[in-house]
């Protein structure tokens, strides 16, 4: 009787076949996901890889942007992203800490949450127009890195807030309770227990945010990015070139551009973004190795 236990019944066989079928299906779906990434990267490397060189990265564009390098655009993008981060990270993290650790669940908090969700849904071109009205004109920053970065910061703020809040919430409530029971204040609890254990998630969210910021074109187009400006910016009130806008310009606005150039610019932009993403992933793995519960 016991030996019959392991004999396969028809039901067992059907179950096994169905399981194999679904497994294959899911694997195919996953592979389909990778396809666009491979095609895009492949095309860029194939068509633009040849143009990339030290000179290309570190010299100015010349001859109506049909020759030379992309240095001012590369530096400009770094400026825009850094200034935007300097604004959105402190603001976003502070707001997320308030919402996750202090705010009671009342109508005021719900309105704030609603505002954040809606802000995240605003198209970037609308942010761009808001940036022109608010920062370029009303605050009088003119078209400048400051105005463009502020626009980018406002645009990325909801994502910083939401990802930070999620990281904070992933720290178990029991830790907070244990800490409060010892007589710790809310801030002591945040400082000693919540933040140290949420920091990997927070940083990952921020770095992913950086990569999005670097690729945005619309919000900086009218607020601070210049069509052609073969100098490096000296401060936040200068205009600057940027990789994303430069790509748009050489791909569509300038005549007689060699084929490889736009692909090369795109490759640098994507390379920058992937570089930042891999830093974020490496960082997350490093911190996850130290996960404490």
């Amino acid at each position: 009787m016991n030996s019959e236990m392991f004999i396969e019944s028809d039901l067992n066989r059907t179950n096994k076949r169905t399981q194999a079928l679904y497994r294959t299906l899911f694997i195919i779906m996953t592979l389909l996901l990778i396809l666009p990434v491979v095609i895009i990267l492949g095309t860029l490397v194939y068509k633009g890889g040849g143009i990339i060189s030290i000179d290309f990265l570190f010299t100015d564009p010349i001859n109506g942007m049909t020759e030379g390098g992309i240095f001012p655009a590369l530096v400009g993008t770094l400026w825009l992203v850094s200034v935007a981060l300097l604004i959105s990270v402190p603001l976003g993290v502070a707001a997320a800490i308030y919402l996750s650790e202090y705010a009671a669940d009342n109508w005021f908090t719900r309105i704030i949450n609603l505002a954040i969700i809606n802000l995240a849904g605003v198209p970037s071109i609308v942010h761009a127009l808001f940036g022109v009205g608010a920062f370029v004109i009303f605050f009088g920053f003119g078209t400048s890195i400051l105005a463009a970065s502020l626009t980018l910061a406002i645009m990325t703020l909801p994502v910083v807030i939401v990802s930070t809040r999620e990281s904070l919430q992933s720290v178990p409530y029991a830790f907070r309770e244990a800490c409060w029971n010892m007589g710790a204040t809310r801030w002591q609890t945040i400082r000693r227990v919540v933040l140290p254990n949420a920091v990997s998630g927070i940083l990952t969210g921020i770095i992913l945010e950086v990569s999005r910021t670097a690729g945005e074109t619309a919000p900086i187009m009218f607020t601070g990015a210049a069509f052609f400006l073969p100098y490096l910016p000296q401060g936040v009130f200068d205009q600057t070139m940027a990789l994303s806008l430069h790509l748009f310009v050489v791909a569509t606005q300038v005549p007689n551009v060699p084929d490889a150039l736009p692909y090369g610019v795109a490759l640098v932009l994507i390379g920058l973004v992937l570089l930042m993403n891999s830093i974020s992933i490496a960082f997350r793995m490093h911190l996850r190795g130290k996960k404490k519960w």
Partner: protein
Amino acid sequence: MVTTTEITPKLQVKDLTIRYGSHTALSGVSLEVMPNEIFSIIGPANAGKTSFLKVLNRMDTFNSEMKYDGKIFFNGLDTRHLRNHYALRRRIGVVFPLPVGLPMTVYENVALSPRLRGINNKAELDVIVERCLQRAALWDEVKDRLDSLGSLLSGGQQQRLTIARALSQEPELLVLDEFSIAVDPVTTMRIEEVLKELKEEMTIILVTNLVQQARRLADRTAFFLNGECVEMGITEALFSGEAKDQRTIDYIEGRFG
């Protein structure tokens, strides 16, 4: 004229009622706990035992649903209108049913409370950490792994770690909520020995669902049932047939629950 020197009770609870929203978790409880006493609370699930413990150190302030009526005096001071809840909580050490090891090293788990009160001197912290771990009967097992994560200890060790952490607050009142629920019998006995020693220095409130544990340890015992304090008295008296209420007798003898 000679006045008798009365001892102030460590804890005085008068007509305490606890509500979560419209749901009453505990009603009309009055009791006193004397210094250096082990006072146990027994009773089945839903009796309101944990809720009772939560208002003692005013953890109700973290839960907007939770409200209480009645008066609670700690060292003779009314805790209702207390501004400095933090000082009150520091004087009351709490041990939860399931050990909550904070996500830090064994050492830091015990050093956290002293750090919160501003002690940062390493030598001073070393002394405190060793003493607390000794008193929680854990030192010998962890003295070589103070820098490993608290969550890597076994369940029974973690529970003793939370006791050590509670002791690091230098509490006047130690509150244990069903501490042995996730602990083996041997560790339970060790912790019980620890509690008997700690009694010399502090007051202990022991919530337990092991009736015999109350009998072994407690000077006095209260029986809670469905949000009421059914009966309260000298532990030995309750257990040796002097309980007045039939429900208490049934519960003690394990006939319902």
